[in-house]
């Protein structure tokens, strides 16, 4: 149940001198750190007992909504069920206390897990190799784009531009800039797909790559992907695929067979690892053999017979992208998930995700406007055009959903759709839950006509109501400065 308290004070506000939530026993003679560099005075950490810490964070948790609480149709985020065995596995002592700088003979289990997962991800994507080092999707993108850069540089043909569809995630253009490229935006055609004719006009020998999301952020499969790859390859450019929407493809197609040279996966989306309120994710990068020399070091190698090891000696590697080897404990959960489902289970997962999305689309298309009519896979994008005349916006609809115990969909994205409402139900929802969502969406539309004010004031039952984001940004208060903070 949600917290019964009106307000949870900051942990600093309940602090009283002399308390602590931990007992530390000195096992050795105490030494003082002296001299110029010794810390002096109060640091400003709270002083509370274990009881107060437990109550504080328990009550805070009750102001949150997780995927275990219910429907979470955030488009492009794939908020699927997080299997509970995952957590058990990632907290096995043998993995938790495994130090990244231990000798290889002490970490055979960790190395084997990485190798097995890499092989599975290659099987799923149809790519030749995989590196687990990137810590998140955007980090995977950066790794992939840096490999593309190195590939061209090694051929003595460094290039300048990356083409990115206007429907892409913001990370794609940001990543390209970080990899040292200039971005050229490609407009979507009337179906919301990459405009092949426009591509033909824009492509030249200064273009390093196209970053494509397939299916794209509208949920539309880029049918021409093979042709697109052909156009790029004919000019020596490569095709990068953002695998954020892999939940629509597993077991049905392999990007590696569609001309994709390099891609990343979002473990925290497609492969069921919890999002943790912002992370950690994991963004393995999978690539074809022509990019293998440029992959980040170290590379996990070996088998049960020879044992497992790490290869640091890759002269053309882009280098290291993570302090150690990526979000290892997160990748264990993905491995467990893949093993549990197997190939057929993954395919059924894809099927159910696509079925749920299309079912919602069909049931709501007469109530909410569909800005693009193209057939979609695992997600569907509506907008607020039909509700506009009542003065109700996408934001109001989203906030009203909260009153009915449903997490809002992704809103105002993709940017090419005005007032976008992007719904991705995933395979984790029962028919009952999906029908409930449909019923509520229809009810909200009715409310928009009859009582728009109730939407504009929503949500009504949350620990706080709509917050003043303008004030937060104009006069940033980013830490607690003492009793007179507010």
């Amino acid at each position, binding site marked *: 149940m949600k917290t019964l308290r009106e307000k949870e004070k900051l942990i600093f506000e309940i602090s009283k001198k002399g308390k602590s939530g931990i007992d530390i026993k000195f096992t050795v003679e105490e030494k003082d750190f002296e001299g110029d560099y010794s*810390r002096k005075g109060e640091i400003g950490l709270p002083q509370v007992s274990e009881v107060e810490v437990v109550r504080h964070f328990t009550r805070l948790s009750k102001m949150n909504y997780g995927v275990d609480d219910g429907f979470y149709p955030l488009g492009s985020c794939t908020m699927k069920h997080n299997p509970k065995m995952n957590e058990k596995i990632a907290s096995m002592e043998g993995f938790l206390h495994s130090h*990244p700088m231990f000798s290889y003979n002490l970490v055979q289990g960790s190395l084997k897990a990485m190798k097995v997962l890499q092989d599975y991800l290659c099987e799923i994507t149809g790519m030749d190799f995989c590196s687990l080092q990137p810590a998140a999707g955007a980090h995977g993108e950066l790794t992939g784009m840096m490999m593309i850069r190195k590939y061209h540089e090694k051929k003595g043909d460094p290039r300048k531009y990356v083409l990115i569809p206007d429907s892409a995630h913001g990370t794609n253009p940001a990543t390209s800039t970080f990899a040292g490229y200039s971005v050229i935006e490609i407009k979507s055609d009337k179906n919301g797909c990459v405009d092949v004719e426009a591509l033909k006009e824009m492509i030249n020998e200064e273009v390093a790559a196209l970053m494509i999301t397939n299916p794209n952020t509208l949920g539309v499969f880029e049918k021409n992907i093979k042709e697109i790859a052909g156009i790029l390859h004919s000019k020596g450019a490569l095709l990068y695929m953002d695998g954020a929407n892999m939940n629509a493809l597993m077991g049905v197609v392999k990007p590696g067979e569609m001309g994709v040279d390099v891609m990343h996966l979002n473990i925290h989306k497609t492969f069921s690892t919890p999002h943790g309120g912002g992370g950690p994710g994991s963004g393995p990068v999978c690539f074809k053999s022509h990019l293998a020399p440029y992959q980040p070091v170290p590379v996990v190698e070996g088998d049960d017979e020879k044992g497992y090891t790490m290869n640091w000696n890759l002269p053309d590697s882009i280098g290291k992208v993570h302090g150690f080897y990526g979000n290892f404990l997160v990748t264990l959960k993905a491995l467990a998930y893949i093993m549990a489902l197997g190939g057929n289970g993954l395919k059924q997962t894809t099927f159910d995700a696509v079925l749920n999305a299309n079912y919602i689309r069909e049931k709501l298309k007469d109530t909410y406007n569909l800005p693009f009519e193209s057939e979609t896979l695992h997600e569907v994008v509506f907008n607020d055009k039909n509700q506009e005349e009542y003065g109700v916006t996408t934001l109001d609809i989203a906030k009203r959903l909260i009153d009915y115990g449903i997490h809002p969909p992704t809103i105002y994205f993709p940017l090419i759709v005005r007032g976008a409402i992007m719904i991705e139900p995933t395979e984790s929802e029962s028919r009952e839950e999906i029908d409930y969502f449909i019923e509520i969406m229809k009810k909200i539309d009715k409310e928009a006509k009859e009582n728009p004010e109730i939407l504009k004031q929503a949500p009504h039952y949350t620990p706080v109501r709509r917050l003043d984001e303008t004030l937060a940004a104009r006069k940033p208060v980013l830490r607690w400065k003492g009793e007179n903070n507010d």
Partner: protein
Amino acid sequence: MSRFLPLSDEEREQMLKEIGREDLFSPIPKDLRLKEDLKIRSHSEKEVLYFFNNLASMNKNLTSFAGAGVYHHFIPSAVDYLSTREEFLTAYTPYQPEISQGTLQTIFEYQTMMCNILGMEVSNASMYDGATSLAESILMAKRIVKKKNTVAISKGVHPHYLKVVKTYLKNLGINIVEVGLKDYVTDIDQLKKRLSENSDIFAFAVGYPNFYGSVEDLKEIVPVVKEYDKKAIVITSTTEPLSFGIIAPPGDFGVEIACGEAQSFGNYPGFGGPLLGFLATTEKFVRQMPGRVAGQTVDLDGKTGYVLTLSAREQHIKRERATSNICSNQGWCMLRATIYLSLLGENGYKKLAKLNYSLSEYAKEKIGKTKHFKVVNTKPTFNEFTVQTDVDFLSFRAMCEENGVFPGVHLAKFGLDKDKFILTCTEVITPEDIDKLVNLMESAK
């Protein structure tokens, strides 16, 4: 195979019929679709757990003196217990603040704690790890000091961090000048020389404490850099922020960006991830800071609440002009750090730091008396230091491992000296463990 799938076959059929679609995958051209099933076998939960139990037991966890960027610390049960509450663990990024106050208030508390620990004014909500956090800090400094293009980096920065920085900067046309060490801290004369030779330097990055365990002389370094160019920025990179329980924090010396790794705060070594990159700065530079940040505000009724703010810096708004491409961060690791630091509190944090230091000093003293091993640091150290030996390190390490002890991290693992290793003593080590290691040292040949 279907335990994660709540639709029954009958429901699937009905739903398909209702939407009038015979081929659900009709948007995908037939010639692209797979002809064969994926070659991955399905497993029952029991089988999966059996597989992972086996893997976990293939890992050997010894009495460990390993550190060098990732640390073994004792983690109170409440950290595991509270952080695995589903409301925290299974929630998305808090883009809907009305139903994410738990995460948002935690971020605000974390930001406050990190600012206080580091002596800084603003902290973000986390980066991937200490290495990427340093790379992002350098890029941030570059945005602040627009017209220059070279960063000076002390060789006392963690070597993996330096590698990651090189990877990140290589494509952006930013030059790196390395500044060497003397007695295992930054050679100030060399720093002065590098600065005098090059007018293009926008920042200097230094380990604090550095990779070899030594406390760098910030009191001297910061003025040297500021005299060179008052706009140039000093960045500290810290792998073990528990040290600031007894060592003066970077903010005390006018450091403008303090970044590093906070895995030590309530997160397990976990074979190197997930970790917790931190990045803190001054209010003046907040708009150039990468990553998410939570701020305090009020709701319609005037009630205090928290939101993600200053979002216009980020990729989902600024796209190719964003301060960083980071989106997912290490939010859950940050939550664990906040719970951990709440439990430790003012006194626990200081006391634990002192215990780490005292154990390490005990070990230094004992090792100093051995025949074949010596501590090379001359400046103060916190809970780790560098040891040199004239015996073959690999045979020594093998002997230790046979005796259930991992003696420390070999510098050769980083492509550095073969005769040296970094030895770390946290509170999980007892004086008896140290005695045992010293005995092994005594018996090494």
